[in-house]
């Protein structure tokens, strides 16, 4: 009986990925077959119960932290990994009144950058904010939602539709 099951395990091949994404952000990889490690014993029943779950989890978690990843990639070097800014050189994002006061302008600010004096929490800043023209409306939405829901910021989540509409009005 147990030999029979083991044979089934050995002949089992991992399921094909549901879809192969084009870019890294959307790639959906099926997990490796769990029985491959030498010397590790699995109960076949448990293994079969978890395989589909693992495969599904691999596909659904890809874009979940896109905002956080984009923040680390495009913003954290200046604004800090906790949105703290840098003294009076770079304005903070954590607890920043600018985010709430200029909420509707933020998609354009991220897209185009800016080079004018900006007052945040009563302090004037004049450093250059670079543009981020490579970010899609969906990416900007995830990025803004991440910023606006961390470090004490509590704004209503944005939709891609809203962000797109605001981007259309950018000068």
């Amino acid at each position, binding site marked *: 009986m147990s030999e029979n099951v083991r044979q089934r395990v050995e002949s089992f091949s991992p399921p094909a990925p549901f879809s192969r994404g084009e870019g890294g952000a959307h790639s959906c990889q099926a997990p490796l077959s769990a029985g491959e490690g030498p010397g590790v014993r699995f109960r076949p029943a448990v293994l079969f119960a978890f395989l589909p779950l693992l495969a599904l989890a691999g596909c659904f978690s890809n874009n979940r932290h896109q905002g956080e990843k984009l923040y680390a990639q495009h913003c954290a070097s*200046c604004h800090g990994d906790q949105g703290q800014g840098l003294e*009076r050189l770079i304005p903070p994002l954590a607890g920043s009144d600018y985010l709430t006061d200029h909420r509707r302008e933020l998609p354009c600010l991220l897209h185009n950058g800016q080079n004018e004096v900006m007052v945040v929490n009563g302090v004037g800043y004049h450093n250059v904010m*670079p543009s981020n023209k490579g970010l899609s409306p969906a990416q900007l939405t995830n990025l803004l939602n991440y910023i606006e829901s961390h470090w004490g910021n509590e704004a209503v989540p944005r939709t891609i539709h809203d962000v797109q509409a605001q981007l259309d009005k950018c000068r």
Partner: protein
Amino acid sequence: MLNRFLLPALAATLLTTACTEPPKTVAALPILGERDVRPRADGGPADTVYAAVPAFRLTDQAGQPVSNQTFAGRAYVTDFFFATCPGICPKMQSELLKVYKKFPTDPRISFLSITIDPDHDSTAVLRDYAQRLGIGDASRWHFASLGDRAKSFELANHLLTGVVPDSLAPGGLAHNGTLALVDDRGYIRGAYDGLNAGQVAALQRDIPVLLAEIDGRKKGVAKK
């Protein structure tokens, strides 16, 4: 019966060994950069000659000249930046600021940030930058300019920072965020990635090692 004497004796031996300090290993930082091996005229073992930081003459945010002599007999940490840099500079400067705050008043070590965009970063711009970073005393942390762009790049290379103009890089200049630790004789004793928290922590650990070495050298000179 025997045990009665043996046990205290054993305990005593254990105690005394616990009290003797382990032999102190002398931590020494390496000398980085170019080196030359020169044979000696008398046929003795060849001398290794290390390259020191070349002579430089800068002007800092207070309008004061800064040269190698400014740091004579003292250690200093250098990095290369520019005021409008939207890329790695803020991260690098915030990390160096952490190191600075560990030694804010120690006269044996000071800090030197050199601009690679001297055309834009005038004395006034550098002064504003320093003040905004919270550095009130220019002699503790110099933000300085060489005046000439190409020469700034050359000096950067000597201090283990690579700089190339790059239209694709944020701010138009691609450079790395090396923090270089220079000793009292002008030798580079450490190079750390200013974007890597672990390496910045290593710099913080290495500074006291270097300061102890410099103190030792000064005592040696005083004895003679």
